């Protein structure tokens, strides 16, 4: 009734929507770097949208399923196989008991993160209301750490193999239309709204911020993306008291190289904030690789929030359309 980890991959951690309600205690939110992929992977296997999934970075793990299970991969167009059968991305797939799930390095390593959802969910203990793995504080997920070889991850609802054929036929016939704006496309332009300390920066910094691309340095991970490009300067050095930060806050330490705060960011920070990445582009950012370049463009808050509402509506439509998956699978439990 569990999944055996044959090889752990580069960095594979369980993530859900994050550990909310405890930022006032200094506890980071964490959660999926790509919230759209989290939600999509879950909907494709008939789960509630916030069920924990496995977030896999660059190279995926090798996994052996002990029972049949309905899985879905979303995110990077990763080359995944069940034995020798390719597993399509963004579709439900029936993996059979004893079939190893493995990943081959593709010709194009185009995106950073891929998400694996299993129907019924992984059996993980919630810590402070969330199953997200907080690597730094060793909380949540599987013992507060990334997957390791020989781990066993229990799953809640393995499927009865007698339904194998009918389920495979069902999945094959299932038509899935994914709206483009669910953040699945790769792009390098990132939209931002002005940050609280925007006016503290020099005119030259304002221009450079939008005119010149920034490189995502190798020192970029779940906590933040460190960027390299034009150095951004304040009009005059200012002391700022620590204040709350958000996923997507772009802060500028004294060296002038901006940092985009990502999922595992600290709850508060004392560096000036030049801008905030809009929510609609966080999934895009989560899929970019170190070494790639991004450029920023300005958006108004109202427009950014309209994009959130639009995405929400698209997800609700998709959720309704895919409700049949959970219904169908509920007839096939062991």
């Amino acid at each position, binding site marked *: 009734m569990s999944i055996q980890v044959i090889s752990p991959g580069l960095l594979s951690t369980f993530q859900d929507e994050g550990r909310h309600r405890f930022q*006032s205690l*200094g506890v980071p939110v964490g959660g999926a770097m790509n919230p759209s992929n989290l939600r999509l992977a879950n909907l494709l296997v008939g789960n509630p949208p916030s069920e924990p999934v496995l977030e896999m970075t660059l190279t995926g793990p090798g996994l052996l399923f002990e029972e049949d299970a309905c899985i879905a991969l979303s995110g990077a167009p990763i080359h995944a196989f069940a034995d020798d059968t390719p597993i399509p991305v963004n579709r439900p797939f029936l993996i059979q008991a004893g079939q190893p799930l493995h990943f081959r390095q593709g010709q194009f390593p185009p995106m950073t993160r891929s998400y694996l959802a299993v129907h019924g969910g992984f059996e993980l203990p919630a810590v402070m209301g969330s199953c997200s793995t907080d690597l730094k504080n060793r909380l949540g997920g599987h013992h507060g750490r990334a997957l390791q070889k020989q781990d066993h991850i229990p799953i809640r609802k393995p499927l009865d193999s007698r339904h194998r054929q009918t389920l495979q036929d069902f999945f094959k016939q299932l038509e899935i239309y994914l709206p483009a704006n669910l953040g699945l496309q790769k792009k390098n332009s990132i939209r931002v709204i002005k940050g609280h300390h925007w006016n503290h920066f020099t005119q030259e910094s304002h221009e450079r911020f939008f005119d010149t691309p920034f490189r995502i340095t190798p020192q970029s991970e779940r906590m933040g993306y460190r960027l390299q490009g034009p150095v951004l300067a304040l009009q005059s050095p200012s002391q700022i008291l620590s204040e*709350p930060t958000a996923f997507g806050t772009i802060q500028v330490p004294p060296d002038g190289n901006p940092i985009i705060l990502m999922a595992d960011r600290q709850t508060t920070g004392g560096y000036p904030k030049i801008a905030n990445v809009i929510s609609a582009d966080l999934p895009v950012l989560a899929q970019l690789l170190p070494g790639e370049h991004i450029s920023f463009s300005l958006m108004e808050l109202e427009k950014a929030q309209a994009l959130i509402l639009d995405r929400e509506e698209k997800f609700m439509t998709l959720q309704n359309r895919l409700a049949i998956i959970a219904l169908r699978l509920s007839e096939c439990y062991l």
Partner: protein
Amino acid sequence: MSPISVPQKKWRFTPEGDACIIIRFTHEGLSTQVSQLCLQAAQSIANAGLPGINDIVPAFNCVGVHYRASCWGKAPFHTLCQTLDLLLAQPYFPPNAAPEQTIDIPVCYDPEYGIDLEPLARTLKCSTEQLIAMHTSRAVRVFMLGFAPGMPYMGLLDTKMDVPRLATPRLAIAAGSVAIANRQTIIYPQASPGGWHIIGRTPIALFNPERAPHTLLTPGDTVRFKAISKETFTYLKNNRHEHPGY
């Protein structure tokens, strides 16, 4: 002629991206009064049970409100600001529960733990004993928790202890390290990097995800530091359950 008095609003709202609002109190700098305003605002918002609020984060002179824009109509920022504005304008009723507490925190100021104690005493032109006395003689307020789970920002210390942070932060600081900078004092709950002057170490745990409450300290609490010997430090470290309250 005296200027015409205009009723001045005590707060304003700024967006922190498209999913967070920061309520900024118009007081300058850092004080117990503005800290109290922040905690009261955070409490009022929590009590109101507004929809789609993920986190309420009080800081020194502002409060972060993380929200789901999809729960707040067609103009989420605007609508939530209006709601918060009405809420904050109401008189504040202190809650019955969660009284602010006074907590003693044992600190071993041995130079083995307080690695910056001696250089700092030289900078401040006092003895290490005087430095320790300054740190222990004045009760401090917990302004906020941040940076790491359970990490308290406390103050204000004696004006004599107004030292800037280290020019180059250290990469690794031991868990429990007690440090000062800018008339504030903090405790690093876990091993981490940091740029404050380390003057001692506490054997007390500040965060435990398995227990309620999860943190030893809460914003608004009063803290008194008590100097302890190395022997007491070791004893308390090995018998953490004996510390009252945690």
